[in-house]
Protein backbone atom coordinates (compact mmCIF):
# COMPACT_ATOMS: atom_id res chain seq x y z
CA UNK A 1 0.00 0.00 0.00
CA UNK A 2 2.71 2.43 1.03
CA UNK A 3 4.65 1.70 -2.12
CA UNK A 4 1.74 2.62 -4.26
CA UNK A 5 1.28 5.93 -2.50
CA UNK A 6 4.96 6.76 -2.66
CA UNK A 7 4.82 8.63 -5.89
CA UNK A 8 1.41 10.18 -5.41
CA UNK A 9 2.64 13.62 -4.48
CA UNK A 10 5.04 13.71 -7.36
CA UNK A 11 2.40 12.51 -9.81
CA UNK A 12 -0.08 15.08 -8.54
CA UNK A 13 2.50 17.85 -8.96
CA UNK A 14 3.26 16.74 -12.46
CA UNK A 15 -0.28 16.13 -13.74
CA UNK A 16 -2.97 17.69 -11.63
CA UNK A 17 -1.35 20.89 -10.51
CA UNK A 18 0.69 21.66 -13.60
CA UNK A 19 -2.14 23.76 -15.03
CA UNK A 20 -2.87 25.49 -11.77
CA UNK A 21 -1.25 28.84 -11.14
CA UNK A 22 -1.13 29.93 -7.58
CA UNK A 23 -1.91 33.57 -8.18
CA UNK A 24 -1.76 36.55 -5.90
CA UNK A 25 -5.54 36.48 -5.75
CA UNK A 26 -5.57 32.94 -4.39
CA UNK A 27 -3.04 33.94 -1.76
CA UNK A 28 -5.12 36.88 -0.69
CA UNK A 29 -8.25 34.75 -0.48
CA UNK A 30 -6.60 32.17 1.70
CA UNK A 31 -5.05 34.78 3.96
CA UNK A 32 -8.42 36.46 4.24
CA UNK A 33 -10.11 33.19 5.24
CA UNK A 34 -7.39 32.46 7.82
CA UNK A 35 -7.70 35.87 9.41
CA UNK A 36 -11.46 35.81 9.41
CA UNK A 37 -12.93 35.91 12.90
CA UNK A 38 -14.92 32.80 13.53
CA UNK A 39 -18.51 33.99 13.42
CA UNK A 40 -20.80 31.19 14.26
CA UNK A 41 -23.71 30.47 11.93
CA UNK A 42 -26.00 31.09 14.87
CA UNK A 43 -24.77 34.64 15.38
CA UNK A 44 -25.28 35.39 11.71
CA UNK A 45 -28.80 34.02 11.96
CA UNK A 46 -29.65 36.43 14.76
CA UNK A 47 -28.06 39.37 12.93
CA UNK A 48 -30.03 38.58 9.78
CA UNK A 49 -33.26 38.28 11.72
CA UNK A 50 -32.68 41.55 13.53
CA UNK A 51 -31.97 43.31 10.25
CA UNK A 52 -35.08 41.87 8.61
CA UNK A 53 -37.46 43.41 11.12
CA UNK A 54 -37.81 45.99 8.36
CA UNK A 55 -38.04 44.70 4.81
CA UNK A 56 -34.87 44.59 2.75
CA UNK A 57 -33.53 43.08 -0.44
CA UNK A 58 -30.68 40.60 -0.24
CA UNK A 59 -28.39 43.26 -1.66
CA UNK A 60 -29.19 45.75 1.10
CA UNK A 61 -28.74 42.99 3.63
CA UNK A 62 -25.18 42.19 2.43
CA UNK A 63 -24.21 45.82 2.90
CA UNK A 64 -25.63 45.96 6.41
CA UNK A 65 -24.13 42.64 7.45
CA UNK A 66 -20.78 44.00 6.31
CA UNK A 67 -21.48 47.06 8.43
CA UNK A 68 -21.94 44.78 11.43
CA UNK A 69 -18.56 43.25 10.78
CA UNK A 70 -19.86 39.91 9.57
CA UNK A 71 -17.50 38.68 6.91
CA UNK A 72 -18.96 35.30 6.05
CA UNK A 73 -20.64 36.57 2.89
CA UNK A 74 -17.77 38.82 1.84
CA UNK A 75 -16.92 37.78 -1.73
CA UNK A 76 -19.48 35.06 -1.22
CA UNK A 77 -22.61 37.12 -1.55
CA UNK A 78 -24.55 34.54 -3.52
CA UNK A 79 -24.56 32.25 -0.53
CA UNK A 80 -26.56 34.72 1.48
CA UNK A 81 -29.44 33.72 -0.79
CA UNK A 82 -29.21 30.04 0.06
CA UNK A 83 -29.41 31.14 3.68
CA UNK A 84 -32.37 33.42 3.02
CA UNK A 85 -34.22 30.75 1.04
CA UNK A 86 -33.70 28.31 3.87
CA UNK A 87 -35.04 30.80 6.37
CA UNK A 88 -38.01 31.48 4.12
CA UNK A 89 -38.81 27.78 3.88
CA UNK A 90 -38.71 27.53 7.67
CA UNK A 91 -41.53 30.10 7.73
CA UNK A 92 -39.46 32.65 9.63
CA UNK A 93 -39.29 35.28 6.90
CA UNK A 94 -41.48 36.03 3.91
CA UNK A 95 -40.69 37.61 0.57
CA UNK A 96 -42.35 40.04 -1.71
CA UNK A 97 -41.44 40.92 -5.31
CA UNK A 98 -41.78 44.43 -6.65
CA UNK A 99 -42.68 45.25 -10.24
CA UNK A 100 -39.05 46.28 -10.80
CA UNK A 101 -37.88 42.74 -10.03
CA UNK A 102 -36.51 43.30 -6.54
CA UNK A 103 -37.30 40.70 -3.93
CA UNK A 104 -37.83 42.05 -0.43
CA UNK A 105 -37.50 39.91 2.65
CA UNK A 106 -39.18 40.57 5.96
CA UNK A 107 -39.64 38.79 9.26
CA UNK A 108 -42.95 36.97 9.65
CA UNK A 109 -44.95 36.89 12.87
CA UNK A 110 -43.39 33.54 13.60
CA UNK A 111 -39.92 34.98 13.00
CA UNK A 112 -40.67 37.89 15.32
CA UNK A 113 -41.74 35.50 18.04
CA UNK A 114 -38.54 33.49 17.72
CA UNK A 115 -36.44 36.64 17.74
CA UNK A 116 -38.23 38.06 20.77
CA UNK A 117 -37.68 34.85 22.67
CA UNK A 118 -34.00 34.90 21.81
CA UNK A 119 -33.65 38.54 22.89
CA UNK A 120 -35.48 38.09 26.16
CA UNK A 121 -33.77 35.00 27.35
CA UNK A 122 -30.40 36.18 26.20
CA UNK A 123 -29.83 32.52 25.51
CA UNK A 124 -27.28 31.39 23.07
CA UNK A 125 -28.47 31.54 19.53
CA UNK A 126 -27.87 27.83 19.08
CA UNK A 127 -31.30 27.22 20.52
CA UNK A 128 -32.85 29.41 17.83
CA UNK A 129 -30.86 27.68 15.13
CA UNK A 130 -32.08 24.30 16.30
CA UNK A 131 -35.65 25.47 16.53
CA UNK A 132 -35.68 26.73 12.97
CA UNK A 133 -33.61 24.27 11.03
CA UNK A 134 -33.46 21.03 12.91
CA UNK A 135 -37.06 20.25 13.56
Amino acid at each position, binding site marked *: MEDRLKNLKKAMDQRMFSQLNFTEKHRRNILGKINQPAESDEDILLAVMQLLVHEK*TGFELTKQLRGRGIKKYE*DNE*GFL*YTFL*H*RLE*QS*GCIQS*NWTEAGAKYYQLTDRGRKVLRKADKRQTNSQVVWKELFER
Partner: protein
Amino acid sequence: MNKKQVFLSEVIAQIKSKEAKQYVTDELNYHVKEAKNVWIKKGLKETEAEEKAVEQMGSPIQLGQQLNKLHRPKVDWILMILLVTIFGLGFLPMFSIPIGEYLLVSKVIITLIGSASVLGIMLMDYRKLKKQGWLFYSIGVLILLVLRLFSNTTINGLSLLRVGPLTIESIMSLPFFFLAWASLFNLERLKVWQFSLLFLLPFFLLLTVPSISTTYIYTIMVFSMLWWSRFSRKIVLSIWGLSVSFFLFVSLISWKFLGVYQKDRLLAYLNPEEYSDGPGFMILHVKEFLSKAGWFGHSMNKEFIPEAHTNLVFVSFTYYYGWLLAIVLVVILGLFIARMMIITSRIKDPYGKLLLIGAVSLYTVQLATNIGMTLGVFPLISMSLPFISYGLMPTLLNAILIGIVLSVYRRKDLTRITELLKK
Protein backbone atom coordinates in the same frame (compact mmCIF):
# COMPACT_ATOMS: atom_id res chain seq x y z
CA MET B 1 -22.05 36.38 -23.33
CA ASN B 2 -20.90 38.73 -20.63
CA LYS B 3 -19.57 37.73 -17.24
CA LYS B 4 -22.92 38.04 -15.58
CA GLN B 5 -24.64 35.71 -18.01
CA VAL B 6 -21.82 33.19 -17.68
CA PHE B 7 -22.15 33.29 -13.91
CA LEU B 8 -25.93 32.91 -13.97
CA SER B 9 -25.89 30.07 -16.45
CA GLU B 10 -23.28 28.27 -14.36
CA VAL B 11 -25.47 28.59 -11.29
CA ILE B 12 -28.64 27.36 -12.94
CA ALA B 13 -26.85 24.53 -14.72
CA GLN B 14 -26.67 22.92 -11.26
CA ILE B 15 -30.38 23.35 -10.60
CA LYS B 16 -32.68 20.63 -11.85
CA SER B 17 -36.13 22.14 -11.38
CA LYS B 18 -37.04 24.31 -14.34
CA GLU B 19 -39.23 26.59 -12.26
CA ALA B 20 -36.50 27.10 -9.64
CA LYS B 21 -34.07 28.16 -12.40
CA GLN B 22 -36.14 31.16 -13.36
CA TYR B 23 -36.78 32.06 -9.74
CA VAL B 24 -33.09 31.98 -8.81
CA THR B 25 -31.93 33.75 -11.98
CA ASP B 26 -34.19 36.74 -11.39
CA GLU B 27 -33.04 37.23 -7.83
CA LEU B 28 -29.31 36.84 -8.46
CA ASN B 29 -29.53 38.98 -11.59
CA TYR B 30 -30.98 41.80 -9.54
CA HIS B 31 -28.21 41.48 -6.96
CA VAL B 32 -25.40 41.57 -9.55
CA LYS B 33 -27.03 44.55 -11.27
CA GLU B 34 -27.16 46.50 -8.00
CA ALA B 35 -23.60 45.57 -7.07
CA LYS B 36 -22.42 46.60 -10.53
CA ASN B 37 -24.05 50.01 -10.16
CA VAL B 38 -22.17 50.54 -6.90
CA TRP B 39 -18.87 49.82 -8.61
CA ILE B 40 -19.73 52.13 -11.52
CA LYS B 41 -20.47 54.89 -9.04
CA LYS B 42 -17.07 54.25 -7.50
CA GLY B 43 -15.58 55.04 -10.90
CA LEU B 44 -15.09 51.66 -12.55
CA LYS B 45 -15.82 51.05 -16.21
CA GLU B 46 -18.87 48.99 -17.03
CA THR B 47 -17.12 45.71 -17.87
CA GLU B 48 -14.81 45.99 -14.87
CA ALA B 49 -17.71 46.79 -12.59
CA GLU B 50 -19.57 43.72 -13.80
CA GLU B 51 -16.53 41.52 -13.33
CA LYS B 52 -16.10 42.78 -9.78
CA ALA B 53 -19.78 42.30 -8.98
CA VAL B 54 -19.75 38.74 -10.29
CA GLU B 55 -16.53 37.94 -8.42
CA GLN B 56 -18.15 39.01 -5.16
CA MET B 57 -20.87 36.44 -5.59
CA GLY B 58 -18.57 33.47 -4.94
CA SER B 59 -18.41 30.10 -6.65
CA PRO B 60 -21.36 29.67 -9.04
CA ILE B 61 -21.16 25.88 -9.04
CA GLN B 62 -21.26 25.52 -5.27
CA LEU B 63 -24.01 28.09 -5.08
CA GLY B 64 -26.02 26.25 -7.71
CA GLN B 65 -25.60 22.95 -5.91
CA GLN B 66 -26.81 24.37 -2.61
CA LEU B 67 -29.79 26.05 -4.24
CA ASN B 68 -30.63 22.86 -6.09
CA LYS B 69 -30.79 21.03 -2.80
CA LEU B 70 -33.10 23.67 -1.33
CA HIS B 71 -35.42 23.82 -4.31
CA ARG B 72 -35.83 20.17 -5.05
CA PRO B 73 -39.45 19.68 -6.12
CA LYS B 74 -41.41 18.68 -3.05
CA VAL B 75 -43.82 15.80 -2.82
CA ASP B 76 -46.27 15.68 0.05
CA TRP B 77 -45.69 12.11 1.09
CA ILE B 78 -48.45 12.15 3.72
CA LEU B 79 -51.08 12.84 1.06
CA MET B 80 -49.42 10.29 -1.24
CA ILE B 81 -49.58 7.56 1.41
CA LEU B 82 -53.21 8.43 2.17
CA LEU B 83 -54.01 8.25 -1.53
CA VAL B 84 -52.42 4.83 -2.02
CA THR B 85 -54.20 3.55 1.10
CA ILE B 86 -57.59 4.82 -0.03
CA PHE B 87 -57.15 3.50 -3.58
CA GLY B 88 -56.45 0.14 -1.97
CA LEU B 89 -59.47 0.34 0.33
CA GLY B 90 -61.55 1.29 -2.69
CA PHE B 91 -61.31 -2.31 -3.85
CA LEU B 92 -62.94 -3.72 -0.71
CA PRO B 93 -66.55 -3.03 -1.82
CA MET B 94 -65.85 -5.09 -4.94
CA PHE B 95 -65.78 -8.19 -2.74
CA SER B 96 -68.78 -7.30 -0.60
CA ILE B 97 -71.45 -6.92 -3.28
CA PRO B 98 -72.99 -9.57 -5.52
CA ILE B 99 -71.98 -7.93 -8.80
CA GLY B 100 -68.49 -7.02 -7.55
CA GLU B 101 -66.55 -9.54 -9.57
CA TYR B 102 -67.96 -8.19 -12.81
CA LEU B 103 -66.89 -4.68 -11.95
CA LEU B 104 -63.39 -5.59 -10.75
CA VAL B 105 -61.62 -5.13 -14.09
CA SER B 106 -63.14 -1.72 -14.72
CA LYS B 107 -62.40 -0.74 -11.11
CA VAL B 108 -58.72 -1.54 -11.75
CA ILE B 109 -58.77 0.56 -14.92
CA ILE B 110 -60.54 3.45 -13.18
CA THR B 111 -58.00 3.35 -10.33
CA LEU B 112 -55.12 3.41 -12.82
CA ILE B 113 -56.63 6.36 -14.68
CA GLY B 114 -57.16 8.12 -11.35
CA SER B 115 -53.55 7.55 -10.22
CA ALA B 116 -52.20 8.70 -13.58
CA SER B 117 -54.25 11.90 -13.40
CA VAL B 118 -53.02 12.65 -9.88
CA LEU B 119 -49.38 12.26 -10.95
CA GLY B 120 -49.87 14.14 -14.23
CA ILE B 121 -51.56 17.10 -12.57
CA MET B 122 -49.00 17.16 -9.76
CA LEU B 123 -46.16 17.52 -12.28
CA MET B 124 -47.99 20.23 -14.22
CA ASP B 125 -47.39 23.81 -13.10
CA TYR B 126 -50.72 24.95 -11.65
CA ARG B 127 -49.82 28.60 -12.27
CA LYS B 128 -50.37 28.04 -15.98
CA LEU B 129 -54.08 27.55 -15.23
CA LYS B 130 -54.41 30.96 -13.61
CA LYS B 131 -55.04 32.84 -16.84
CA GLN B 132 -57.45 30.27 -18.26
CA GLY B 133 -60.34 31.13 -15.92
CA TRP B 134 -62.71 32.20 -18.68
CA LEU B 135 -61.85 29.18 -20.79
CA PHE B 136 -62.68 26.81 -17.93
CA TYR B 137 -65.86 28.70 -17.20
CA SER B 138 -66.96 28.41 -20.83
CA ILE B 139 -66.20 24.70 -20.95
CA GLY B 140 -68.23 24.19 -17.78
CA VAL B 141 -71.20 26.09 -19.20
CA LEU B 142 -70.86 24.30 -22.53
CA ILE B 143 -71.03 20.88 -20.85
CA LEU B 144 -74.19 21.92 -19.04
CA LEU B 145 -75.78 23.39 -22.18
CA VAL B 146 -75.07 20.24 -24.15
CA LEU B 147 -76.58 18.15 -21.34
CA ARG B 148 -79.58 20.44 -21.07
CA LEU B 149 -80.34 20.37 -24.78
CA PHE B 150 -79.28 16.94 -25.97
CA SER B 151 -79.50 14.57 -23.00
CA ASN B 152 -80.74 11.22 -24.22
CA THR B 153 -80.64 8.99 -21.17
CA THR B 154 -81.98 9.31 -17.66
CA ILE B 155 -80.78 7.24 -14.72
CA ASN B 156 -82.41 7.77 -11.32
CA GLY B 157 -83.70 11.12 -12.48
CA LEU B 158 -80.26 12.28 -13.62
CA SER B 159 -79.89 13.39 -17.23
CA LEU B 160 -76.99 11.91 -19.11
CA LEU B 161 -75.70 12.16 -22.63
CA ARG B 162 -74.36 8.97 -24.12
CA VAL B 163 -72.17 9.30 -27.17
CA GLY B 164 -70.72 5.93 -28.01
CA PRO B 165 -68.75 4.73 -24.96
CA LEU B 166 -68.63 8.24 -23.52
CA THR B 167 -71.15 9.37 -20.91
CA ILE B 168 -71.47 13.06 -20.19
CA GLU B 169 -72.94 13.94 -16.83
CA SER B 170 -73.31 17.16 -14.91
CA ILE B 171 -70.58 16.29 -12.40
CA MET B 172 -68.05 16.63 -15.24
CA SER B 173 -68.54 20.38 -15.21
CA LEU B 174 -67.46 20.66 -11.55
CA PRO B 175 -63.66 20.54 -12.02
CA PHE B 176 -63.97 23.22 -14.70
CA PHE B 177 -66.03 25.51 -12.47
CA PHE B 178 -63.60 24.82 -9.64
CA LEU B 179 -60.64 26.01 -11.74
CA ALA B 180 -62.68 28.88 -13.18
CA TRP B 181 -63.70 30.27 -9.80
CA ALA B 182 -60.16 30.05 -8.42
CA SER B 183 -59.08 32.36 -11.27
CA LEU B 184 -62.13 34.62 -11.14
CA PHE B 185 -61.95 35.19 -7.39
CA ASN B 186 -58.31 36.10 -7.85
CA LEU B 187 -59.26 38.98 -10.16
CA GLU B 188 -59.15 42.33 -8.46
CA ARG B 189 -61.61 43.96 -10.82
CA LEU B 190 -64.40 41.42 -10.26
CA LYS B 191 -67.54 43.27 -9.16
CA VAL B 192 -70.31 41.87 -6.98
CA TRP B 193 -72.91 42.02 -9.77
CA GLN B 194 -70.51 40.22 -12.13
CA PHE B 195 -69.98 37.57 -9.48
CA SER B 196 -73.74 37.14 -9.05
CA LEU B 197 -74.38 36.71 -12.76
CA LEU B 198 -71.44 34.36 -13.20
CA PHE B 199 -72.60 32.30 -10.24
CA LEU B 200 -76.26 32.15 -11.24
CA LEU B 201 -75.83 31.04 -14.87
CA PRO B 202 -74.34 27.60 -14.00
CA PHE B 203 -76.62 27.44 -10.97
CA PHE B 204 -79.81 27.60 -13.04
CA LEU B 205 -78.38 25.42 -15.77
CA LEU B 206 -77.60 22.76 -13.14
CA LEU B 207 -81.07 23.12 -11.59
CA THR B 208 -82.78 22.63 -14.93
CA VAL B 209 -80.55 19.83 -16.25
CA PRO B 210 -81.70 18.72 -13.60
CA SER B 211 -79.09 17.73 -11.08
CA ILE B 212 -79.86 18.78 -7.53
CA SER B 213 -76.78 17.16 -5.97
CA THR B 214 -74.35 18.82 -8.41
CA THR B 215 -76.11 22.16 -7.86
CA TYR B 216 -75.64 21.67 -4.14
CA ILE B 217 -71.92 20.81 -4.42
CA TYR B 218 -71.36 23.71 -6.81
CA THR B 219 -73.04 26.19 -4.48
CA ILE B 220 -71.12 25.08 -1.39
CA MET B 221 -67.84 25.21 -3.32
CA VAL B 222 -68.36 28.72 -4.67
CA PHE B 223 -69.54 30.09 -1.34
CA SER B 224 -66.56 28.59 0.52
CA MET B 225 -64.09 30.00 -1.98
CA LEU B 226 -65.83 33.38 -1.77
CA TRP B 227 -64.39 33.89 1.72
CA TRP B 228 -60.84 33.87 0.30
CA SER B 229 -61.72 36.01 -2.73
CA ARG B 230 -60.65 39.62 -3.25
CA PHE B 231 -63.95 40.86 -1.84
CA SER B 232 -63.78 42.39 1.60
CA ARG B 233 -65.05 40.30 4.48
CA LYS B 234 -68.03 42.61 4.92
CA ILE B 235 -69.19 42.08 1.34
CA VAL B 236 -68.73 38.31 1.65
CA LEU B 237 -70.79 38.21 4.84
CA SER B 238 -73.59 40.20 3.24
CA ILE B 239 -73.61 37.93 0.17
CA TRP B 240 -73.84 34.91 2.47
CA GLY B 241 -76.59 36.46 4.56
CA LEU B 242 -78.63 37.51 1.52
CA SER B 243 -78.28 34.11 -0.15
CA VAL B 244 -79.34 32.18 2.94
CA SER B 245 -82.41 34.37 3.52
CA PHE B 246 -83.29 34.19 -0.17
CA PHE B 247 -82.97 30.41 -0.05
CA LEU B 248 -85.29 30.17 2.96
CA PHE B 249 -87.79 32.52 1.32
CA VAL B 250 -87.84 30.53 -1.92
CA SER B 251 -88.19 27.25 -0.03
CA LEU B 252 -91.20 28.56 1.89
CA ILE B 253 -92.87 29.88 -1.26
CA SER B 254 -92.17 26.82 -3.34
CA TRP B 255 -93.50 24.47 -0.66
CA LYS B 256 -96.98 25.38 -1.85
CA PHE B 257 -96.17 24.52 -5.43
CA LEU B 258 -94.33 21.26 -4.83
CA GLY B 259 -95.91 18.10 -6.16
CA VAL B 260 -97.21 15.56 -3.65
CA TYR B 261 -94.43 13.07 -4.35
CA GLN B 262 -91.79 15.78 -3.85
CA LYS B 263 -93.31 16.76 -0.51
CA ASP B 264 -93.49 13.13 0.47
CA ARG B 265 -89.80 12.65 -0.17
CA LEU B 266 -88.87 15.54 2.08
CA LEU B 267 -91.30 14.54 4.81
CA ALA B 268 -90.13 10.95 4.57
CA TYR B 269 -86.62 12.07 5.38
CA LEU B 270 -87.87 13.78 8.53
CA ASN B 271 -90.13 10.95 9.56
CA PRO B 272 -89.38 7.78 7.58
CA GLU B 273 -91.61 5.44 9.64
CA GLU B 274 -94.77 7.16 8.46
CA TYR B 275 -93.82 6.71 4.84
CA SER B 276 -92.40 3.22 5.14
CA ASP B 277 -94.27 1.89 2.13
CA GLY B 278 -93.19 4.79 -0.09
CA PRO B 279 -90.25 7.13 -0.08
CA GLY B 280 -89.35 6.27 3.50
CA PHE B 281 -88.65 2.67 2.54
CA MET B 282 -85.05 3.22 1.45
CA ILE B 283 -84.18 5.20 4.54
CA LEU B 284 -85.52 2.48 6.81
CA HIS B 285 -83.86 -0.18 4.68
CA VAL B 286 -80.49 1.52 5.10
CA LYS B 287 -81.07 1.94 8.82
CA GLU B 288 -81.84 -1.74 9.19
CA PHE B 289 -78.62 -2.80 7.45
CA LEU B 290 -76.52 -0.43 9.53
CA SER B 291 -78.03 -1.60 12.80
CA LYS B 292 -77.50 -5.25 11.85
CA ALA B 293 -73.87 -4.67 10.85
CA GLY B 294 -72.21 -5.03 14.27
CA TRP B 295 -68.50 -4.41 14.90
CA PHE B 296 -67.21 -7.10 12.59
CA GLY B 297 -69.90 -7.27 9.93
CA HIS B 298 -71.30 -10.21 8.00
CA SER B 299 -68.51 -11.06 5.68
CA MET B 300 -70.18 -14.25 4.49
CA ASN B 301 -73.54 -13.14 3.15
CA LYS B 302 -73.82 -10.79 0.23
CA GLU B 303 -77.17 -9.16 0.80
CA PHE B 304 -78.73 -7.17 -1.99
CA ILE B 305 -78.45 -3.47 -1.20
CA PRO B 306 -79.53 -0.98 -3.86
CA GLU B 307 -76.76 1.27 -5.24
CA ALA B 308 -74.35 -0.76 -3.11
CA HIS B 309 -71.31 0.17 -5.17
CA THR B 310 -72.12 3.84 -5.80
CA ASN B 311 -74.15 6.14 -3.56
CA LEU B 312 -74.82 3.65 -0.78
CA VAL B 313 -71.36 2.11 -0.81
CA PHE B 314 -70.93 3.05 2.85
CA VAL B 315 -73.96 0.95 3.78
CA SER B 316 -72.76 -2.15 1.97
CA PHE B 317 -69.23 -1.60 3.26
CA THR B 318 -70.39 -1.34 6.86
CA TYR B 319 -72.78 -4.27 6.61
CA TYR B 320 -70.16 -6.54 5.10
CA TYR B 321 -67.01 -5.49 6.95
CA GLY B 322 -68.49 -4.13 10.18
CA TRP B 323 -68.37 -0.84 12.02
CA LEU B 324 -64.72 -1.18 13.05
CA LEU B 325 -63.44 -1.07 9.49
CA ALA B 326 -66.08 1.51 8.56
CA ILE B 327 -64.75 3.85 11.24
CA VAL B 328 -61.18 3.28 10.02
CA LEU B 329 -62.36 4.16 6.53
CA VAL B 330 -64.02 7.39 7.65
CA VAL B 331 -60.93 8.36 9.67
CA ILE B 332 -58.65 7.88 6.65
CA LEU B 333 -61.02 9.85 4.43
CA GLY B 334 -61.12 12.54 7.14
CA LEU B 335 -57.31 12.68 7.30
CA PHE B 336 -57.35 13.94 3.70
CA ILE B 337 -59.28 16.99 4.88
CA ALA B 338 -56.92 17.58 7.81
CA ARG B 339 -53.84 17.28 5.62
CA MET B 340 -55.23 19.56 2.91
CA MET B 341 -56.09 22.18 5.53
CA ILE B 342 -52.56 22.06 6.96
CA ILE B 343 -51.15 22.54 3.48
CA THR B 344 -53.57 25.42 2.85
CA SER B 345 -52.23 27.27 5.88
CA ARG B 346 -48.71 27.06 4.46
CA ILE B 347 -49.51 28.39 1.00
CA LYS B 348 -48.72 32.06 0.41
CA ASP B 349 -49.82 32.40 -3.21
CA PRO B 350 -53.43 33.72 -3.17
CA TYR B 351 -54.37 31.78 -6.30
CA GLY B 352 -52.88 28.57 -4.88
CA LYS B 353 -54.77 29.19 -1.68
CA LEU B 354 -58.08 29.58 -3.56
CA LEU B 355 -57.44 26.32 -5.40
CA LEU B 356 -56.83 24.55 -2.10
CA ILE B 357 -59.93 26.01 -0.47
CA GLY B 358 -61.96 24.87 -3.47
CA ALA B 359 -60.44 21.41 -3.32
CA VAL B 360 -61.06 21.07 0.41
CA SER B 361 -64.68 22.22 0.11
CA LEU B 362 -65.47 20.02 -2.91
CA TYR B 363 -63.99 17.01 -1.18
CA THR B 364 -65.53 17.70 2.23
CA VAL B 365 -69.01 18.27 0.80
CA GLN B 366 -68.98 14.86 -0.88
CA LEU B 367 -67.64 13.06 2.19
CA ALA B 368 -69.90 14.75 4.74
CA THR B 369 -73.03 14.46 2.60
CA ASN B 370 -72.50 10.84 1.70
CA ILE B 371 -71.84 9.76 5.27
CA GLY B 372 -74.62 12.08 6.47
CA MET B 373 -77.27 10.63 4.17
CA THR B 374 -76.20 7.11 5.03
CA LEU B 375 -76.61 7.84 8.72
CA GLY B 376 -79.98 9.49 8.07
CA VAL B 377 -79.08 13.07 8.99
CA PHE B 378 -79.25 14.19 5.36
CA PRO B 379 -81.83 13.42 2.65
CA LEU B 380 -80.88 10.66 0.25
CA ILE B 381 -79.46 12.24 -2.89
CA SER B 382 -77.08 11.10 -5.55
CA MET B 383 -73.68 11.62 -3.95
CA SER B 384 -70.66 9.37 -4.08
CA LEU B 385 -68.17 8.60 -1.34
CA PRO B 386 -64.77 9.92 -2.50
CA PHE B 387 -62.49 7.18 -3.91
CA ILE B 388 -64.72 4.37 -2.56
CA SER B 389 -67.80 4.70 -4.75
CA TYR B 390 -67.55 3.03 -8.11
CA GLY B 391 -67.48 5.28 -11.17
CA LEU B 392 -64.98 6.94 -13.47
CA MET B 393 -66.27 10.52 -13.15
CA PRO B 394 -66.37 10.74 -9.34
CA THR B 395 -62.94 9.09 -9.11
CA LEU B 396 -61.54 11.43 -11.74
CA LEU B 397 -63.01 14.47 -10.00
CA ASN B 398 -61.31 13.61 -6.71
CA ALA B 399 -58.08 12.62 -8.45
CA ILE B 400 -58.02 16.07 -10.06
CA LEU B 401 -58.56 17.71 -6.66
CA ILE B 402 -55.72 15.81 -4.99
CA GLY B 403 -53.50 16.37 -8.05
CA ILE B 404 -54.05 20.13 -7.81
CA VAL B 405 -53.27 20.13 -4.08
CA LEU B 406 -50.02 18.25 -4.76
CA SER B 407 -49.16 20.60 -7.62
CA VAL B 408 -49.58 23.65 -5.40
CA TYR B 409 -47.58 22.01 -2.60
CA ARG B 410 -44.78 21.14 -5.00
CA ARG B 411 -44.22 24.79 -5.89
CA LYS B 412 -45.07 26.44 -2.61
CA ASP B 413 -41.58 27.89 -2.14
CA LEU B 414 -41.28 29.11 -5.72
CA THR B 415 -44.24 31.41 -6.03
CA ARG B 416 -43.81 35.13 -6.21
CA ILE B 417 -45.99 37.33 -4.11
CA THR B 418 -46.08 40.77 -5.65
CA GLU B 419 -48.24 42.36 -3.01
CA LEU B 420 -49.05 41.82 0.61
CA LEU B 421 -51.87 39.43 1.34
CA LYS B 422 -55.17 40.71 2.59
CA LYS B 423 -54.84 40.71 6.34
